[in-house]
């Protein structure tokens, strides 16, 4: 029997070897940094540059200042606005797409993948061309006599919203699609057959069964939208300041690392809360459509 145990041990050692890289990398370069961030958020900022190893809660107290709270609120508002728009635009897309024939599904998927694979900056740049004073949008609106003067949409809040929605839309579409694709559309027909109105059939059957995809799409839109500072940067100028921009500023310009860490911890807590709610609501562990 000892030979048995010996062999099992050896086999186990070989298997443990395969997870070793993942363990080491995860502990060293994911857990380590995150723990350090949390530690950092409780440390004191040095007079000029760097960090003093003195415990303080000051960084968190700073967040409570109206300016920063305002920023948090702005970010949440923008994230919510973007998410709602992404749902309204993306859900029907994913749902209709699942109803296409196999051939067209493939083609549509391809057409979706190409912009998705194209550099997000290139696509943002396209929006600058559209939005800038005297840009395409202005020309179009003037030609249609909707407006006489430039609408000056670049470097405004709506421009940022458009950029966000545009960047995040594919995630929602993929999530909804992957869920709707599994949907047996004969169930909808059955519901109609049983006397449900189209709306009722949609609400009770389709929406209910694609809810996991929708929820996962919401997470995939909401969570990143809290941190996409470069969209706000490029399309919003310095008029729209989000938590992401704030963290970046604190890190790169003000060099107040402990405060940046505290902001990050707060943001992490916020998004974790969101993820927690998602899991509670959907009862799913893995995000749909991500894989």
């Amino acid at each position: 029997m000892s030979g048995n145990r010996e062999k099992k041990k050896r086999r186990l050692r070989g298997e443990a070897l395969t997870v070793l890289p993942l363990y080491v990398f995860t502990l060293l370069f994911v857990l380590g940094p995150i723990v350090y961030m949390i530690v950092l958020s409780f440390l004191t900022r040095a007079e000029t540059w760097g960090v003093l190893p003195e415990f303080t809660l000051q960084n968190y107290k700073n967040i409570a200042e109206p300016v920063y709270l305002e920023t948090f609120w702005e970010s949440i508002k923008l994230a919510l606005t973007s998410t709602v728009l992404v749902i309204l635009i993306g859900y029907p897309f994913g749902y209709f797409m699942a109803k296409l024939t196999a051939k067209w599904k493939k083609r549509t998927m391809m057409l979706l993948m190409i912009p998705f694979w194209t550099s997000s900056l290139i696509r943002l740049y396209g929006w600058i061309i559209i939005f800038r004073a005297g840009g395409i949008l202005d020309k179009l609106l003037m030609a249609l006599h909707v407006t006489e003067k430039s609408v000056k949409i670049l470097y405004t809040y709506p421009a940022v919203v458009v950029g966000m929605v545009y960047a995040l839309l594919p995630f929602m579409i993929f999530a909804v699609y992957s869920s709707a694709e599994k949907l047996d559309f004969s169930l909808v027909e059955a519901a109609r057959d049983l006397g449900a109105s189209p709306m009722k059939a949609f609400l009770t059957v389709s929406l209910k069964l694609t809810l996991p995809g929708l929820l996962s799409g919401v997470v995939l839109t909401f969570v990143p939208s809290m941190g996409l500072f470069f969209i706000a940067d490029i399309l919003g100028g310095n008029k729209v300041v989000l938590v992401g921009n704030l963290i970046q500023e604190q890190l790169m310009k003000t060099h107040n690392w402990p405060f940046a860490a505290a902001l990050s911890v707060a943001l992490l807590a916020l998004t974790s809360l969101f993820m927690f709610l998602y899991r509670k609501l959907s009862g799913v562990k893995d995000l749909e459509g991500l894989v």
Partner: protein
Amino acid sequence: MSKTVLELQEITKSFSGTPVLNGISLKAEQGEFITLLGSSGCGKTTTLRIIAGLETPDSGRVLLSGKDMTDTEPNKRDVNTVFQNYALFPHMNVEQNIGYSLKIRKRPKTEIRGEVQKMLSLVQLTGYEKRMPSELSGGQRQRVAIARSLINRPQLLLLDEPLGALDLQLRRQMQQELKRLQKKLGITFIYITHDQEEALNMSDRIAVMMDGRFQQLGTPSEVYDSPKTAYVARFVGSANIVYGAVECVEGELVRFTSTDGSGVFHCRGNRFEPGRPVTLAVRGEQAVLTKEFEKGSRGLFGTVKEKSFAGGMLRIAVSLHNDLEFICSRHGIDSELVPGDRVRISWEPQNACPVDLDGEERI
């Protein structure tokens, strides 16, 4: 002349606290066709996996050709398996699948090709070497799986419900073909099925399993005609089980009484004492139903519940006391009996077989 290829000694195994095998012992001679028969969850697949080395028993030993192989890895055993779903490698064609074990053993390419050709003609698939598994029908995949596990000429071939996914006609055909192959190659087969007909057709010996135990291990006729336990009688012979108490013993004949009447059976070499409970197995086709009977005649009495026709046989269900049912079957479609008739059930003494209650709850 014949030698023991496989010996299982008191194998036990449990999965997370639930016992699956409770002391299995088995000896298989060279060239024998042994079937493990039982319903799902009885432990037959686990037994097979232990022989293959895919599971390690909690206790007990596995001997292959007399050598203790209990702790040997599956890749070092001279045993091959035909998996239930065939487990053909989807990314290899038929030739690569069949030749895989020779490739591992680093045989020269020409030799592998020759061997593969031999196997293909053996399973009648010549010309299919470049096909992918996805391009084959169920029966063809089955043959490839068999060829793949036979190419090494293992001493022992394990087959886990290999015909389970095939339709009835193909099943019958493959049963014969498998038997032919086995006879030709002289390899020991350990075969799993839950189909008693298949087991009775093909096997040299059958082990009927229930709850991780062998209920009976014997030749098809032993298992069919002289079931040891109520479970075996029911599962293999679809027999009726009659419960009663011994009334008196007259030579080799034993009289018994039950709530439904009384009857006679042959003791078959067992000793019976008056007053002791007895359980009998009576196969439906060996029971006789009579409508007109004299008062006080021997037999079980009941009421015809329903008639149905299945598989060329007429089934007549007779309800007895305590919600028990006795199923009679006979050839032909005609019977003057109608539901509601009072009938007498009787049989020739030698057709009632005393069995153990083991594992079966008395209702």
